[in-house]
């Protein structure tokens, strides 16, 4: 029975709403310090100014290090194309901060929408199953399936 499937799946990801998607985390890292390593091994230490859904980022007050790790540059600000990034290291505390923010947003959304939500609840419950396989929709919060709380 497909309903059973849905329930099992929901519990497996239920406590991790999609809004903690990697790119949402990046969004939440704005003004936070981070280390970005590019595919070519160069690293950039700076504060995130802005980012987009391509993972393009702008940093300020940057220390650039070459791939060998033996030369260093100070850069006031820089733009990095997302496709050249290998990984980003962000503050450990960021995940908790995002979670709290999400809970607040969810509570606010629930009380604002009131009874309307419970009606949409069933529909919302179905959507994430598909979405989870190929997660679409990006980091927009308060979207599908958020109706069922946790």
């Amino acid at each position: 029975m497909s309903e059973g499937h849905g329930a099992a799946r929901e519990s497996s990801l239920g406590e991790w709403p999609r809004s903690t998607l990697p790119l949402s985390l990046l969004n939440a890292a704005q003004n936070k310090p981070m280390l970005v390593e590019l595919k070519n091994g160069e690293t950039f230490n700076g504060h995130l100014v802005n980012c987009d859904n391509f993972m393009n980022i702008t940093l300020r007050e940057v220390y650039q290090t070459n791939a060998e790790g033996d030369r260093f540059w100070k850069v006031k600000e820089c733009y990095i194309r997302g496709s050249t990034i290998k990984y980003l290291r962000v503050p450990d505390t960021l995940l908790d901060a995002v979670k709290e923010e999400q809970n607040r947003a969810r509570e606010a959304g629930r009380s604002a929408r009131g009874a309307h939500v419970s009606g949409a609840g069933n529909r919302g419950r179905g959507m994430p199953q598909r979405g989870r396989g190929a997660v679409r929709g990006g980091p927009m919060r308060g979207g599908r399936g958020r109706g069922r709380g946790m």
Partner: protein
Amino acid sequence: MDKPKREAILDLAKYTNERIRVKFTGGREVTGVLKGYDQLLNLVLDEVEENLQTESDADPQTRKLGLVVLRGPTITLLSPVDGFEEIANPFAQQE
């Protein structure tokens, strides 16, 4: 909640007539004075100098390219030349 980042995250207007450093896929690197740009990050730079054999060699060699159109999709890194300087290891004490 968060704004969907449709608009560019980089405001190139502030670099107009300023010298910027651009790196490309493949490793080439140039500096030049920003004269124009579009949403795709295509740039027009004047007084362009290509930095040859960066990173590997300590002595910087350049060649002059003059007025150049840079293709946005090949640009990997962009930063103002102002405030760019080589420094000693800033992480030395931490490591």
